[in-house]
């Protein structure tokens, strides 16, 4: 069938509206560049990407869960607890393990912690907010219980992905970008990805068409957990040690914020990894920019929140504008709207 018969101007407008996050990104970047002398440098762009890597994986994980129509409050603490567990395991409990075993192990532990959420949401049928609120508390305090303070002496193999460089480039950046591409591929090109959108868009319809909501929810939370484990690995690399506050603080809220300013709907179904990447980069720019401007970290945190609110507001109008464009159908089509 022929494509939608829209004029070139209409298509251009639609394109801008659908990719508004990138426009906001450029504006934010130029605004900081205009006010800060060292902002517009290759070195700083490299740094922004690096800072955005670990939180980026959390944003992708949260995006996946949000697209499936759920939410995960525990995602940052999955990163924290899996780092702590694998750190304690490789440094203290089983020191004979070679360092590199921590890499698959941390992803596995993350997946396991995520699958707990998936089990209760998918198979027991409890509201995801309640399930992940409970695991949020459990995972957070378990991290403190295992170790108060920091575990140091982490194997170099575990630090490499988050802190190492190859030819000057931080390895964390391609790890984040590759995860984004892979997840984007799964979401747009595979049956599983389609069902993630379907259960988020209309769970009842998906169920009646034979899509198993129990397994779908289980795997969505499990994959999100695995991504969070990988994110924990990057956090270990940032710090070269594992404090009990790792991936704590604002991180869970930033994971939501990045996803939502990237155009992922809280109602489920809608959103793309391209958008989520835009959200991640905007978070990185804002964070780096405010870090370079303001000395008071409390004010910096406040400003982060304020800028996020602005971005969310813009996104709200973006969605309305987009719908208006899509509603205006060219030519006679018949039937009620």
């Amino acid at each position, binding site marked *: *069938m*022929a*494509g*939608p*018969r829209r004029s070139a101007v209409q298509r251009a407008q639609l394109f801008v509206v659908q990719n508004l996050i990138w426009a906001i990104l450029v504006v934010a970047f130029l605004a900081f560049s205009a006010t800060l002398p060292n902002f517009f440098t290759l070195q700083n762009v490299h740094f922004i990407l690096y800072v955005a890597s670990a939180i980026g994986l959390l944003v992708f994980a949260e995006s996946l869960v949000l697209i499936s129509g759920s939410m995960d409050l525990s995602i940052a603490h999955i990163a924290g607890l899996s780092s702590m567990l694998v750190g304690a395991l490789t440094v203290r409990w089983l020191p004979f393990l070679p360092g590199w075993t921590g890499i698959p192990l941390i992803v596995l532990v993350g997946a396991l912690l995520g699958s707990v959420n998936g089990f209760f949401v998918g198979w027991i049928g409890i509201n995801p907010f309640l399930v992940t609120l409970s695991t949020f508390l459990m995972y957070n305090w378990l991290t403190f219980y295992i170790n108060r303070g920091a575990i140091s002496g982490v194997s170099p193999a575990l630090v490499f992905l988050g802190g190492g460089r190859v030819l000057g480039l931080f390895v964390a950046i391609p790890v984040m970008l590759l995860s984004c591409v892979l997840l984007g591929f799964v979401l747009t*090109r*595979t*049956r599983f990805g*389609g*069902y993630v*959108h*379907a259960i988020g*868009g*209309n769970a*009842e*319809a*998906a*169920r*009646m*068409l*034979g*899509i198993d909501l129990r397994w779908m929810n289980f795997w969505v939370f499990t994959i999100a957990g695995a991504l969070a484990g990988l994110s924990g690995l990057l956090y270990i690399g940032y710090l070269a040690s594992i404090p009990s506050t790792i991936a704590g603080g604002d991180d869970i809220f930033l994971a939501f914020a990045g996803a939502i300013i990237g155009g992922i709907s809280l109602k489920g*179904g*809608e959103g793309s990894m391209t958008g989520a990447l835009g959200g991640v980069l905007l978070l990185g720019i804002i964070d780096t920019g405010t870090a370079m401007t303001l000395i008071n970290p409390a004010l910096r945190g406040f400003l982060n929140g304020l800028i996020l609110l602005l971005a969310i507001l813009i996104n709200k109008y973006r969605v309305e504008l987009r719908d208006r464009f*899509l*509603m205006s*159908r*060219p*030519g*006679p*089509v*018949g*039937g*009620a*709207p």
Partner: protein
Amino acid sequence: MSLPGRPVPGALLDLQSIEKWYGEVHALRGVTLQIHRSEIVGLIGDNGAGKSTLIKIISGVIPRDGGQISWKGENVTLDSVRQAQALGIETVHQDRAVVGIMSVARNIFLGREPTRGFGPLRVLDRPRMAQDAGRLLRSLRLHIPSVDQEARFCSGGEMQGVAIARAMHFKASLVILDEPTTALAVTGVQTVLSFIRRLKEDQIACIFVTHNLHDVYAVADRFLVMVRGRVAANIRREEVTVEDLVQMQLAGKAEA
């Protein structure tokens, strides 16, 4: 009507003494019925008569508590939507069967998308989906501007068309339509009725569930009237008028 427990030879779908309880509520009380090949059956009855429960059982959405189901002469468990689909039973659920934020093409294939490659490298065959979807919609004379359009921008009639296209594509032998015309304007109703006639041309049997007797009278070969969890009447179209059917529904209500 046949006696319970004895399958009717030659029937496409044969239900014997189907029981369903919702806690204390006896929703289906020994429902026995047959559907034959390329037959359009109007399933009518007041709200709460058990129509929806019955079709959910036939489409594998909910399990039954008792009774036997046979399909083309063979006993079947019919305990999942997948199994029903594999047998050739497609259900068009009451205006909820479409995922609004997905494209028309993706909706037609949702749950059973064609793929390319194999193993973990299996990816959706999007060009094929677009092509087949376009062909199906044309054969239904549905003029949706693009198969890439999000389904939420379709009218009610078009959405029913999308769901019916799904049934046609997967070569169903039986299509169940749950209240397909209830939410529609007059032109939409005519469109849907033409789809149903189209199904009959393709020798697909159809169960048309509705409480709008005028719509169903225009196309059905036979009517099953449900009253309080039972099939109260099984009549051919030639033996009955719309007014008779209205009376039967009302009588069921008065009895309750």
